[in-house]
C-alpha cells in the first residue's frame, strides 16, 4: 500500500460499528464483530507502538467483562427466574435501602450482566482497534488548524507515555540487576526517582529541539501532504455505516437474518480492503 489512509477513516469505521453493536445488542453479533475487527487489525496495522492498542483494549475488555459480571452477581436488582445458586445476603444499614449485596443468582440475572459485560467489552475493543489502525500523531495533524497548537502539546504528551514505559522497564531491570527488590511500596522510590529525572531531561531535550527548529515562531503553519479523502476511505466508512443503517431500513421480519446481515457486510468490507 503506497498511500496510507486518512487517519479519521478507521475511527469513523470503528465508531459506526460500535453504534451498530450497541443498537443490535446481540452477543453473537458483537463477538463476530470483534473477530472481524481483529482480522483487519492483524492485516492492516503498522509496526508501531500504538499498534498494540488493540491487544491492550482486548485485555481491558476482558477485565471489564469479568468485573461487570462479578458485580452483577454480587450487587443488583433481584430478577426472578431459575435460581442457579445463592450467596448469603450482606446486611446493610437502613439508609442504603434498594441496594442488595448477595442473594439468589438467577439464570436471567447472570445472562443479563454477562450480556452487558460483552457489549461494553466490544465497544472498548472496537475503539482500541481504531487506535491500533491509525497513528495518533497523524490523527492530530488532520484536526483543524485552530487547535493545532493544542494538538502539538498532546503529541509531546503522548510521545512521552511510551517513553515513560520503556524507561520504567529499563530502570526496573537495572535495579533488579543491582540485586534490589523493585516491588512493593517501600521500594517505589528506587524506580520513581531515576524515572522522574530521566523523563524530565527528555522533555527538556524535546522542548529545546522544537524551539531550535522554529516551532511557534510563525503565527501561521503550512501543511506538508495534507490528508485527503478518496474512494477507499469512503468505501470503508460506508461499509460500517451500512451496518448501522441496515436494521433501521428493513423491518424485523426475521430476527436471525437481520442479526447476521450487518455482520456479513463488515466481512465483505474487509475482503475489499485486502
Amino acid at each position, binding site marked *: 500500500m503506497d498511500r496510507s489512509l486518512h487517519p479519521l477513516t478507521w475511527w469513523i469505521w470503528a465508531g459506526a460499528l460500535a453504534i451498530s453493536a450497541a443498537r443490535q445488542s446481540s452477543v453473537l453479533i458483537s463477538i463476530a464483530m470483534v473477530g472481524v475487527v481483529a482480522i483487519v487489525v492483524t492485516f492492516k496495522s503498522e509496526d508501531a507502538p500504538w499498534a498494540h492498542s488493540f491487544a491492550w483494549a482486548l485485555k481491558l475488555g476482558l477485565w471489564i467483562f469479568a468485573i461487570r459480571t462479578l458485580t452483577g452477581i454480587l450487587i443488583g436488582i433481584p430478577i426472578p427466574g431459575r435460581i442457579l445458586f445463592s450467596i448469603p445476603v450482606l446486611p446493610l444499614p437502613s439508609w442504603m435501602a434498594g441496594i442488595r449485596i448477595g442473594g439468589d443468582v438467577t439464570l436471567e440475572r447472570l445472562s443479563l450482566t454477562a450480556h452487558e459485560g460483552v457489549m461494553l467489552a466490544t465497544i472498548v475493543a472496537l475503539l482500541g482497534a481504531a487506535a491500533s489502525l491509525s497513528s495518533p500523531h497523524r490523527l492530530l495533524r488532520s484536526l483543524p488548524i485552530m487547535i493545532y497548537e493544542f494538538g502539538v502539546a498532546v503529541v509531546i504528551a503522548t510521545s512521552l507515555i511510551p517513553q515513560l514505559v520503556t524507561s520504567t522497564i529499563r530502570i526496573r531491570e537495572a535495579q533488579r540487576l543491582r540485586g534490589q527488590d523493585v516491588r512493593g511500596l517501600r521500594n517505589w522510590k528506587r524506580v520513581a526517582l531515576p524515572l522522574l529525572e530521566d523523563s524530565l531531561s527528555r522533555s527538556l531535550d524535546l522542548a529545546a529541539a522544537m524551539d531550535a527548529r522554529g516551532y511557534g515562531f510563525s503565527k501561521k503553519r503550512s501543511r*506538508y501532504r495534507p490528508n485527503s479523502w478518496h474512494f477507499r476511505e469512503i468505501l470503508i466508512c460506508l461499509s460500517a455505516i451500512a451496518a448501522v443503517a441496515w436494521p433501521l431500513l428493513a423491518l424485523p421480519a426475521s430476527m436471525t437474518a437481520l442479526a447476521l446481515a450487518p455482520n456479513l457486510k463488515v466481512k465483505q468490507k474487509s475482503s475489499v480492503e485486502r
Partner: protein
Amino acid sequence: MISFTNVSLIYPTSTKTIFEDLSFTVNEGELVLVMGATGSGKSSLLRLINGLIPHHTGGILAGDICVNGISTREVKPGGLAHLIGIVGQNPINGFVTDKVEEELAFGMEALNLPADIMRKRVEEVLDLLSLAHLRNRSIATLSGGEQQRVAIGSALVMHPKVLVLDEPTSALDPIAAEEVLSILHRLVHDLGLTVVISEHKLERVIQFADRILHIKGDGQAQIGTPEVILQTSDIAPPIVHLARALGLPAISLTVRDMRRSTEELRRDISLPNTQPEEGLHSEVIAVRGISLSYGHTKALDKVSLSIGEGEIVAIMGRNGAGKSTLLKSIAGILQPTQGQISILGNIPSSLHGKERRMCIGFIPQEPSDLLYGQSVMGECTSADRENEIDSGSTFELLRSLVPGISPKTHPRDLSEGQRLALALSVVLSSHPKILILDEPTRGLDYSAKNSLVATLNAAASHGCVVILATHDVELVAEVATRVVFIADGEIVADGRTLDVLLSSPAFAPQVAKIMSPVPWLTVKNVVDAIGLVKPLRPAE
C-alpha cells in the same frame, strides 16, 4: 560566519564560570571541532551559537555572539531556525513526529513554507543523505546511524548556513560513524556549510577538522589548526600519542601521512614470534546454544560461549546486532527461549538479592538507572549497608577511581565519567565474580576512559570476569583480552583481541592501521616492542 566577542557565561545557580572573555570567529565553510574534558562546557558552547543558552535554559551571558550578522541577544532560537541547524546529543529525544518524511517537514511547517517548496526540499535531503528508502519508515524502528542521519536531514531541509552537532557519533558503531562523518565532510566541501561539532572520540573526526576549539575547563579556550592545538594538548587521539612517543618532529593527522613517516620503523622491525600463553582458565560462564527472539526478529541465534576466570571479553558488532541482548541474558534479566546459561553452576535468572550482587555486577547503558540516592555519600552508604561491609569502603573505592569527588554532590550533577565511576564503585563494592558493562564509554573523555581501563584491569587481576559491549575500538585494544564479534544474533568471530581486530579493517584501531602489517594495537604495544627489539629513536 560565527563570531564570539568577549563572551562570558555563568549559570545562575552555580558559582563556576563556564566561559570567561571568550573571543573567536568561525569562517564560512569551515569544520570546527570542539574538544574538551567532560563537563568543560562543550555542549554549552554549542547551545550558545543558536541562543538556546540563555533563551531556553537561563544563564548570565556577557559579550556578544553573532551568526551571519544576527546577534543572538535580540533573536530567539526560533528566529534562527532557518540559519542554524542543531542536532542534539540524543537525536531520538528531539524527534517530534513518527515518520521520517514528516520529521523532515516539521521545521518547514513551523516556518509556514509553501507546500511545493517543502516537497522539493524533502526530496533533495532524502537523496543527499541516502534516506529515500526509509521515507515512510517509523523513526522508532530505525538504527542509531539512520536516526542520526534523519536528525541531520531535518536540520538541513531548512537550508541552514551553520550546522551544529553535539557528539554525533558517540552512540554509533565505527562504520555508521564513518558514514555520518563523511556526509558532513561532503556538506562542508560541496555546499560550503559551516559545521561546528563536538566529539570525544577524536580519532574518528580529527582528519575532517579544519580547526579545533579546545575548551580548557577553567573558562579559557584556544582555537587553532589541529596540528598546533594537538602539539601541546593533553587530550589527543592515539595517532598523536604515537607521534609523541616516537619523537616524530611533526604530528600527522591522517593514517596515510603517519604511515609515510613511520615507514622506516616498520621495515626494520622483525618481531620475535611471540605466542601468548593459552592459559587454561577455569570456566566461569557457560553459554550453551541460546536463542532469543523479540516478536519475529531473532536477536540471538544458537550462541555458545565459554568465558574463564580473569578474562576481559569485548562484545562488538553493529547497532542492533544483539550485544545488549546477550549481556542481559548472561545477567539473567532476559530468559532465552532455547539453550542454557550457567554462571559457576547457577542459572543467572534464579539469583536474587545479595546472592546476585556477589555473583554479577551489571552497569547498564545509562549508569544513572542504578542510582537513586540524593547524594554521592548517600549512594555509597546504602551500598555499604546492603553489602554489609565497613561503612565508608564504597566511598573509598570511588575516591580511588576518581579523586576529588565531593560527597555532597547529587549524582545527576556529576559528569558522565564520574557517574560511571560511582555506579562502578557501588557495583564493585560487593566484589562480584562477573562484571558486565553495556556501552560504558558513551560521553567519556580520554582521562575517564583511562581510569576505566585501570579499574577493569584491576578487577580482572583479582579473577573477576569482565564482559563489555562497546563500539569503542580503541578501548577494546587497550583493555580486552578477547573479542567476540556478533552479527545478526550470531557469533561471527571469537578470538584474541589482536587477531579479531586486525582481521577487519573497519574495526582496526588507529595504531594498527598505521603499523599494519606489524601487529600492534596501541601506543603502548609499539613502545614496548621497540624497547624490546631495538631502540630506533629515543622516545621523546
